[in-house]
């Protein structure tokens, strides 16, 4: 018997409609695969997804809460997308977010004699600086000593989370409640609300600005060219006279800074004080968001909103159905792997060999 053989063949860049359709198909396949885990605990996947959808966008309140969730996710997604474009494996957005939250709280509780707009600017800059400094360490170590960036960025997440924990249980412990949380930041430092009677705050504006900045930096600047060149082929980039070490350090700082703003937003826009659980893993979510968005600004925005829907939807659903909210993480993991596999179809197509 003669079996037909199949072979992977390189192909030209796929048409635009194909590039747009791919993430959509990836999302559908991921939801199908994830329904296995819902069936495994004897739940009806269709019902569960319907509840999730309603929980995320079924009412005005739900929709606005979803936007609150989307705010840090857009920022960490942008942070990771920028870093990955330069092949700087920044898995440390979580720690950089905490560093930003830490720095923002620090200036926030100083009660500086500043009018609101100025104080808010100071808080945002502090958040950026905190994240940037925390990312500078692995960026510098990679550029200067060739220290593996995956490991350092990951380990620094744990260090920063413990630092925040230590500060909150020690010097910053709330003296009135004795609860491990900082006191509230100055009112002039609070991010304004965008929509009355909701929690949607100024951070969303910053998030959208970050998306635009990602587009602008990567596509329209000299640095962006250097970032893309470094990411595609570092050797060739150096040959072109690009200082790839400097590029990596810039990328690390901007990426970390944007993640830091996510932290500042959670403090000044949502919690108004620093708590240990300021992020339930937004930094790690950023990796999935950046990949599903194919490191592309508009893609990152859309996939951040999609995962905000999944996360808020899963939380609401878990209250009505007997499904743990962690189904959101399962869907994320599956989506990341499916999307990754589908990207293969950009480069190759399957041809039947004769």
């Amino acid at each position: 018997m003669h079996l037909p053989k199949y072979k992977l063949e390189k192909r030209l860049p796929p048409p635009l409609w194909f590039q747009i359709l791919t993430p959509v198909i990836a999302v559908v396949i991921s939801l199908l695969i994830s329904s296995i885990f819902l069936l495994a605990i004897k739940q009806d996947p269709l019902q569960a997804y319907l509840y999730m959808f309603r929980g995320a966008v079924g009412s005005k309140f739900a929709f606005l809460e979803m936007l609150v969730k989307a705010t840090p996710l857009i920022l960490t997604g942008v942070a990771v997308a920028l870093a990955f474009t330069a092949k700087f494996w920044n898995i440390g957005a979580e720690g950089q977010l905490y560093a930003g939250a830490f720095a923002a709280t620090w200036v926030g509780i100083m009660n500086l004699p500043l009018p609101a707009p100025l104080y808010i600017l100071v808080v945002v800059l502090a958040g950026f600086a905190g994240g940037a400094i925390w990312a500078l360490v692995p960026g510098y170590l990679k550029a200067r000593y060739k220290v593996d960036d995956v490991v350092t960025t990951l380990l620094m997440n744990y260090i920063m989370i413990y630092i925040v924990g230590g500060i909150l249980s020690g010097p910053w412990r709330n003296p009135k409640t004795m609860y491990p949380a900082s006191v509230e930041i100055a009112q002039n430092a609070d991010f304004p609300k965008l929509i009355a009677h909701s929690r949607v705050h100024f951070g969303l504006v910053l998030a959208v600005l970050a998306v635009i900045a990602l587009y602008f930096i990567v596509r329209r600047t000299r640095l962006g060219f250097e970032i893309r060149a470094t990411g595609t082929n570092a050797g060739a980039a150096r040959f072109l006279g690009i200082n790839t070490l400097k590029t990596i350090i810039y990328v690390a700082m901007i990426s970390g800074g944007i993640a830091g703003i996510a932290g500042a937003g959670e403090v000044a826009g949502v919690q108004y004080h620093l708590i240990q659980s300021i992020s339930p893993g937004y930094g790690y979510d950023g990796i999935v968001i950046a990949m599903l968005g194919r490191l592309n600004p508009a893609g990152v925005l859309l996939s951040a909103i999609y995962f905000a829907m999944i996360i808020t939807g899963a939380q609401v659903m878990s209250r009505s159905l007997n499904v743990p909210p962690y189904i959101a993480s399962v869907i994320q993991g599956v989506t990341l792997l499916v999307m990754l596999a589908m990207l293969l179809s950009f480069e190759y197509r399957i041809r039947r060999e004769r």
Partner: protein
Amino acid sequence: MSDFLTVTFWVGFLAATIRLATPLILATLGETFAERSGVLNLGIEGTMMFGALAAFLTTYFTHSLWLGVLAAVVSGMVFGLLMAFLAVTLGLSQHVSGLGITILATGLAYYLYRAVIGSPTVPPHVDSFNTLPIPLLSKIPVVGPIFFDHFALTYIAFLLVPVAGYVIYRTTYGLSLRSVGENPEVADSVGISVHKIRYSALIIAGALMGLAGSFFTLAEFNLFLFDIVGGRGWVSIALVIFANWIPVRVLWGALLFGGVDAIGLRLQGTSIGIPFQIYLILPYLLTIIMLILIARNASYPSAMLKPYRRE
């Protein structure tokens, strides 16, 4: 603080070092196999997490510790297989495949724990492993309690070090493994199946990572906690570099970190006024410092991160 100088303190400290090194040895040996074949497996943290859960749930329902260990090993092999499919067959980015597996496996572990156990106020326990004192040897003063009164999994981990060394350096399989990781084209040309070797290496790696996970829930603790692995998978990735991909050196690295962990545990109990988090930072900080010191001399397997496709 005067008890720093007592024999009891040092015996306790050294025994704890060996105990805490156990999961690091197992996971790092696993990662060594994966990387020797040319595949970085960042699924390590999640594979350990799922192994910890699989071990816990299996033992919780069957009351058999060894069935729990087996479940952890098998679950690790399944994730190793998945990693192989993504990184070897499909040739996808090893970084992203591995992170995806960690996100998926961690999410699944949390999801299954909540689905099966729920969220009771007191988390359920299992009757975890007792130490297995070795007859006669464990009776030797000082030396006995330090070296010969440990969990079975600890003895297994230490025995696996020379076994891994033997397999990698003294067997045909090990030769194939190393050549596939260094120069897959040449290996292929002499008839070694690059894909088969990488698949097997990732399955072995997964088994060891799962086994490492079972140590947390069945020996070190007797319950499942959401932060039970706590980045030890990532520390293991660093330890592979520290060990320069040589099994025997894995032992020294793991003991060093077991020691730092043990110091943290001891000091947490004795300190007054200093937040205990300071001690928890130590192992991570030390890992980064160590990486800075050795990064330039690290000799990564040449084919690492590169998928192999026959043209």
